[in-house]
């Protein structure tokens, strides 16, 4: 428990006031251990993105506390503990690929050469060496998202917050980037919180899957995904992989029953 990077305690989030009050999240308790890969999954509008934004101090809880690295989420943001990746790459089209990756480093007064070196190293990590001087619009969607990941990692954040980062990509690109993300996760040892709509993606990537209920969102269960590391293409053919997919699916449907070996159901 000492190793928890994120500690969410008794958090409620209510949007609006008075008659328009909409409870978005209810009694959220979540501990994320250092180096974990936690996916948040749940029906649309269940508040998984809100929870991610709460952890990242982009919005504040109505009730409860959030600690990150033993500090308030606010302090953690000021200390630049977060790397953010959204569904859209949100690259700046007046900056080159290299310039985009350097942007966060410009805030932290890193000197010019160190910045350039670091950006090149990050671009190498996401396998975009040779594209430094291109502009974002010259790249494919998948490549743009890799630039966004390189940018998020450029200042070595303690925690990477990813909001459906591969949601807009085609299936093949998505699977390739899943593998790349796992490699980057292993190489950097960063903690990742990952919002997704896809059950197979959540199971494939995560050490833990947090299954959430419909609005107001609650965490129904934090399911540890005990599949061997490192995960690879073979993982996707592992029977246990399908077992976990089924378990997450059933939890999403609100059933508690665990049916091991229900691979046929998951595959259908």
């Amino acid at each position: 428990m000492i190793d928890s990077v994120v500690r969410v305690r008794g958090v409620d989030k209510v949007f609006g006031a008075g008659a328009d009050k909409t409870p978005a999240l209810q009694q959220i308790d979540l501990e994320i251990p250092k180096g974990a890969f936690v996916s948040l999954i749940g029906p649309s509008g269940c508040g998984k993105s809100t929870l991610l934004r709460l952890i990242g101090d982009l919005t504040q809880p109505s009730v409860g506390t959030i600690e990150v690295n033993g500090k308030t989420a606010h302090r953690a943001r000021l200390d630049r503990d977060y790397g953010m990746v959204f569904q859209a790459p949100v690259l700046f089209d007046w900056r080159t690929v290299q310039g985009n990756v350097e942007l966060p480093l410009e805030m932290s007064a890193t000197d010019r050469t160190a910045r350039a070196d670091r950006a090149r190293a990050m671009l190498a990590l996401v396998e975009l060496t040779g594209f430094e001087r291109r502009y974002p619009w010259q790249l494919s969607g998948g490549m743009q998202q890799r630039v966004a990941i390189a940018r998020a990692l450029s200042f070595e954040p303690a925690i990477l917050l990813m909001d459906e980062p591969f949601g807009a990509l085609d299936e093949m690109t998505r699977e390739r980037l899943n593998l790349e993300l796992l490699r980057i996760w292993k190489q950097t040892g960063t903690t990742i919180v990952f919002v997704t709509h896809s059950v197979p993606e959540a199971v494939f990537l995560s050490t833990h899957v947090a299954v959430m209920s419909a609005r107001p969102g609650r965490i129904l269960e934090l399911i540890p995904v005990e599949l061997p590391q490192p995960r690879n293409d073979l993982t996707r053919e592992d029977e246990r992989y399908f077992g976990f997919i089924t378990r997450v699916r059933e939890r999403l449907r609100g059933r508690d029953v665990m049916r091991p070996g229900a691979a046929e159901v998951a595959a259908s």
Partner: protein
Amino acid sequence: MFRAARSAASFLVVIGALAVLWEVVKLLGGDPSSEPWPPPFQWTVASDLNMPHVWEIAASFAEPAQRNGPPLGVVLVNAGIFTFREAFGGFVFGALLGLGLAIVFVHSRLLERALVPYVVASQTVPIIAIAPVVVIWLRGGWLAVAVISAYLTFFPVTIAGLRGLRSPDPRALELMRSYASTSRDILLKVRLPAAAPYLFAAFKVAATASVVGAIIGELPSGIRDGLGGAILNFNQFYVSGPPKLWAAIIVAAVVGIGFFALVRVGEVLFLRGRTAADA
């Protein structure tokens, strides 16, 4: 470069077509004495007084503007340069004021709500009414003209600037917050670069408006060295030399178009590398 050459060529073609149209109107309804045939109609507008021949206007550039004075062309080019200086001053004042207001408004909804109605109202007051007041305040001269010109130029810059500064994706701003960036960083690294295409569009409008503002500003200032003075002068003595006023109008248009083209060149250089849609 190729595109620039092509648009310059099509510009010249349009000018040529206008000149031809002008002469066709004169052939149909001009003064019988100056046309090669008796024109079928007699239109007052097409008389030699109201519409001098294109070649007469062209020839007037080489003739002295006043007895024993320098040629009209030299006088008008000097006046054009003089007016361009005033217009440039007005453009710079207006652009800075306009952008400054936009930056204030984007950071303060309160000030935006309080002041934008007056910014809009300012443009409903005719510049002709404002100009004499400014001249009295600033005792005429170059500065007064630049201020009058700025009165026309700040408005499009404020409106477009505000829109451009607000144009970044909300997630881009969240991203900047997640880097714990200051609002100064957000302004310099996100808002202003994102606003650049909007600002250049406004600068192009402001460039031509600044020339109009400078010409109008010269009238109550009693400035005789600019195009405003020249237009006033040739207007008063129109009957004694109709082509002179037309020549002054042509030079005024050239100054405006030249300023516009200058901004356009700046735009292309500055926005180079961005998506094709912006350039």
